[in-house]
């Protein structure tokens, strides 16, 4: 029997090693060549993130809580939520996790903003053309299924360890839902309403901002909500490449077997997640007041 039937006809070792080495070196060369430029490109982002983090940490704790509660009020008009949010933050501070929580809050906010700013336009492009959709879909699939550690490697090779690569990793991990649901939401907009917009002579832009995006808003908001949740889940992994926040004590607890420390920080992440989730959902619901009880037709 020929050998290729008994054993898998794989590339021989040396070729494989050379292949890997070649790719790695090419990428290393690329990052040496352009790393500085790419880092400079992300400077504004880093600047904003650092500024926002310092602002949250340096402000007196009660100012932060009042500011957060005011924001929740303006978004949701719900006293219950405000009381819940205040209690969550007080407990977090009480157990000594205030600073880490503020760092995490800063990075989650920045990552969510970046995801929305990039994700919504991409979703809109996908909704406008099946070809664009066919191009992005497999990329999104890969982004969602590739183990997060794997794409940490090139990010770190390119930008080293720190906040910006952390943001990048979190955004890659968290952006797919907002893209997918923007695409879906716009594709689901009632065709008759679109026809009406056309019949009144709306330009493509007017159609988009006056009809499609507003009608897709509930779906887009569901995507934003998912994105926030995924960003929070990524915080611990991002801590491995030097992102400050609640993830670092968790990592520390794993290596040192500090169960209680790990649990407390984990619970703080959970608290943040609940706050973000409830607030964004209540906001989404409040925006949909017009979908009252009356049935169309």
């Amino acid at each position, binding site marked *: 029997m020929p050998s290729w039937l008994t054993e898998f006809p794989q590339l021989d070792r040396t070729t494989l090693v050379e292949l890997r080495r070649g790719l790695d070196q090419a990428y290393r060369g690329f990052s040496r060549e352009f790393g500085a430029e790419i880092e400079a490109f992300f400077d504004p982002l880093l600047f904003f993130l650092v500024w926002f983090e310092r602002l949250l940490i340096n402000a007196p704790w009660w100012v932060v809580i009042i500011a957060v509660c005011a924001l929740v009020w303006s978004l949701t008009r719900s006293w219950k939520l405000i009381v819940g949010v205040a209690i969550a933050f007080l407990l977090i501070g009480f157990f000594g996790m205030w600073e880490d929580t503020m760092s995490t809050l800063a990075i989650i906010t920045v990552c969510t903003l970046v995801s929305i700013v990039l994700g919504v336009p991409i979703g809109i492009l996908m909704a406008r053309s099946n070809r664009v959709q066919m191009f992005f879909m497999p990329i999104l699939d890969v982004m969602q299924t590739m183990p997060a550690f794997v794409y940490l490697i090139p990010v770190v090779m390119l930008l080293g360890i720190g906040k910006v690569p952390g943001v990048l990793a979190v955004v890659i991990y968290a952006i797919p839902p907002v893209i997918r649901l923007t695409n879906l939401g716009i594709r689901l907009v*009632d065709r*008759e*309403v679109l*026809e*009406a*917009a*056309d*019949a*009144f*002579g*709306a*330009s493509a832009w*007017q159609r988009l901002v*006056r*009809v499609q995006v*507003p*009608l897709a*808003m509930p779906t887009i908001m569901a995507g934003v909500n998912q994105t926030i949740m995924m960003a929070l889940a990524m915080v611990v992994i991002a801590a491995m490449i030097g992102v400050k926040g609640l993830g670092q004590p968790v990592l520390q607890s794993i290596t040192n077997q500090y169960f209680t420390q790990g649990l407390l920080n984990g619970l703080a992440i959970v608290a943040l997640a609940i706050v973000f989730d409830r607030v964004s959902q209540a906001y989404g619901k409040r925006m949909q*007041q*017009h*979908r*009252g009880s*009356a049935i*169309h*037709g």
Partner: protein
Amino acid sequence: MADPKIRIEGLYKIFGPNPAAAIELVRQGVSKQEMLDANDHVVGLKDINLDMAGQSIQVVMGLSGSGKSTLIRHINRLIEPTAGRVLIDGQDVAQMSKDELRDFRRHQASMVFQRFALLPHRTVAQNVAFGLNIQGLDSGEVDARVARWIERIGLGGYENHYPGHLSGGMQQRVGLGRALATDADILLMDEAFSALDPLIRYDMQSVLLDLQAELNKSIVFITHDFDEALRIGDSIAILRDGEVVQQGDPQSIVLNPADDYVTDFVKGINRGKVIKVATIMRPATDDTEGPKVDGDMLLEDVARLMTREDTGWARVVGASGAVIGVVSTADVMGSMVRLANDDDTAEAAQ
């Protein structure tokens, strides 16, 4: 008739992979069914020629699948024609550039939809303002015009409600207001009242007729309801399988249905509400006594008047006031029920 406001010439619409080739077959006389079975093409519209007068209501009537919604969408080119011309004041819509078309839709033709197609996230006032926002008017002008139209269509007090909270009839008032607010000359109404309950539908027809008496728009009204067509149409075109089978004013269609298809529609209607007394009168005789009735009066109204006056004869007068003919009670009644009578006889004979 003066130059028509809307003239449709040789309009074809064929849906399928290769309409250009298919149209040749259709012109050679291949039937709609054959086109579908053998060629995978759907013949939506076939050689439509229609003149629609300005400042009047042109009804296009047909059952579902007759192509009437496809036809109306050619007037503002929501659907591209396969062949033919759609002339509005002599200008071919099918030849307009993108910008010209947009301008045409913004200022010259607005549309009302069967299922309202309102924006659920905008209030009644904001929905009425939609066309004006699209035109790019400044907000002061928009507010003034919206306020005027909301009052005019009977939605005062509902400005800040959302469409989802309104009944169907109210929603379609919003749709009508949105279309009228742009001041477009042409109003396209695609089964605008078909989704409404009969009573509300009747109401909305009255609203439309009142508005039309004042505004004199050029309205193209699509419906599958023959009663509705008779009530509001100054002129009616009947569509079947993508072809016009008959067109004319309501009375001429009722009196002379072109084929069995039209006869079927005519059968069920109240002839007394369509036929004018001048159509059935006999030559005037000097010695006939009786009340004077206008020649344009409908039979139903003449019958009511003659019954009230308890008279066997009435004298018909023309526009000048001179007596131009006479009718008897029997004439009036006979004309109101004749067709039903024919049917009964035919059925009895079988």
